[in-house]
């Protein structure tokens, strides 16, 4: 796993040497790095812990709004605001996780997606406006990230790229460590047979809430980072497009095939940009691609890589059983 991650980030890390002055490509790379974190979080909770949480985009948006409000209203320095906002998102994640402890499969998907559905009217409504979401107009001026007196913004893409790279590696390595540790084993055991796992001393309560807390923290934090990067936010992100795109990342990468989700994010974000000339045919093409990929590569791109390299024992792929 670590080797594949090192290769992915290694290749991406040297890209600015070749395309550093092409602002458009640098933007795509930055978005790839950001979405890699979100996809990795989703894979951890869905692919490994087996919890069908469909609230990932909602957590991302909450984190983005939270950090933007903390930074612009309370004048908290953006880096700190991101972390605080991640913490708030984690708390909400745990609250959402609590009812999910009693539910199974599709019902968890419904509850978590309900959070997604509620979020848009909330952000646009009076309560949201009171908190500083700017209603349906959104937030138009989010301060850029400042670190050691240096301002990181989209105006200087190369430094910003390396900051994103650092954060992306940090988050995905944390997820890798969790997967490799006994936490990861507990997640898989609970996913496979909750009764058996509990009868062996695994606390379903503790580990399920932990996975909600961790994934919503990282997702919220990277959401905050995204907000400071693009400088403005609106509820448009809660539309179905982004949600579907995120799903495609996981399907392409392979569910439960970490770090496949990271690779899936890179491929999907780039592909999405390349298909831009297709205009309205783009969603159609992407949709068709997903169907073909699911049929041809049930374990995603990473499953193919593993098959070719003869290393099959790792991961928690769903197609195996």
């Amino acid at each position, binding site marked *: 796993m670590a080797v594949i991650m090192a290769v992915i980030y290694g290749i991406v890390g040297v890209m600015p040497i070749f395309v550093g002055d092409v602002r458009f490509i640098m933007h795509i790379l930055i978005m790839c790095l950001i979405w890699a974190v979100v996809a990795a979080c989703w894979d951890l909770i869905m692919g490994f812990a087996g919890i069908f949480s469909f609230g990932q985009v909602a957590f991302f948006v909450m984190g983005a709004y939270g950090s933007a409000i903390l930074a612009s209203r309370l004048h908290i320095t953006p880096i700190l605001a991101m972390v605080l906002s991640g913490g708030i998102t984690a708390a909400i994640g745990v609250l959402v996780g609590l009812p999910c402890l009693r539910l199974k499969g599709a019902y968890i998907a419904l509850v978590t997606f309900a959070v997604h559905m509620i979020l848009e009217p909330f952000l646009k409504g009076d309560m949201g406006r009171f908190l500083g979401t700017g209603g349906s107009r959104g937030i138009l001026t989010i301060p850029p990230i400042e670190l050691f007196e240096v301002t990181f913004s989209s105006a200087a893409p190369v430094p910003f790229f390396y900051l994103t790279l650092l954060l992306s590696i940090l988050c995905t390595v944390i997820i890798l460590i969790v997967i490799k540790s006994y936490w990861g084993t507990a997640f898989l055991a609970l996913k496979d047979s909750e009764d058996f796992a*509990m*009868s062996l*001393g695994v606390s379903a309560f503790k580990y399920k809430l932990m996975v909600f807390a961790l994934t919503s923290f990282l997702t919220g934090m990277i959401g905050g980072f995204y907000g400071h990067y693009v400088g403005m936010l609106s509820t448009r992100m809660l539309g179905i497009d982004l949600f579907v795109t995120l799903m495609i990342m996981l399907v392409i990468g392979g569910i439960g095939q970490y770090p496949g989700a990271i690779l899936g994010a890179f491929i999907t974000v780039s592909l999405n940009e390349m298909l831009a000339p297709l205009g309205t045919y783009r969603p159609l093409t992407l949709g068709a691609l997903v169907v073909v990929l699911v049929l041809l590569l049930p374990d995603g791109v990473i499953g193919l890589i593993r098959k070719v390299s003869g290393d099959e024992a790792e991961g928690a792929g769903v197609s*195996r059983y």
Partner: protein
Amino acid sequence: MTPPQPSNMCGTDPSPRRIARPSGDAAILKAIHVTKKFGELVAVNDLSFEVKKGQIFGIAGPNGAGKSTVYNLITGFYPFEGAIEFNGRNIRGLPPYRIAQLGISRTFQIPQTFPSLTVEKSVSVGNRFGSPGHFDRKYVDRIIEFVGLESQRREMTGQLNLLGKKKLMIGAALATRPKILMLDEPMAGSNTSEIKSLMALIQAINTDLGVTIIIIEHFMKVLTELTETLLIIQTGTELCCGDPCEVTSDPRVIESYLGEAYADSNES
């Protein structure tokens, strides 16, 4: 030196093995007026029994008698009325993982495995999360060897056959270093030679590892050979409890349970 093993199910003398057991009289597990209702259905009805430390305790009864439900109550899967005491402490209301950590482990009637994990990892789960001490790699190795899975330790558990899955469940349960191991119909679906090897394994767990065993079983031969005390339950209540040879010759048991089992086997 070794005492002669009883050759048949019920000799005239009680088995020397049963007398020689260093069990003392201390009860390790007590069910006190336990009742469990599923809506209208009373699955366990005012049931009381006592398991002594070090013994092999058998439970039998017709299908739907409430045997598995008793296990689910002891291991904290459902709330119930009454009390269950483990070493004198009431464990009612504790969550399953706490009860496992206290020293009660179990297997399931429908074999459970972790298809995403290898044999070694699955057994490790028991030791990592269920045993009171730190994770002990050597102990895990010993248990894998003990249940006879060392040649398959790197296989994914989904690939094991039925016997392998049963051994894995027992191994993972043993890795928690239990005081009591509860087996739910461990012989179901096994052939004669598999039954023999499982019986030897259960006996070894009891004598070599010193674990108290409760076993639910339909095969009377297994129960009379292995157990020291046998409890027969019917529609959630005790029908009879005591020495397995006496219990199995009790007219009530023959009529309501053995008779029925006999009729069942004639039908099919």
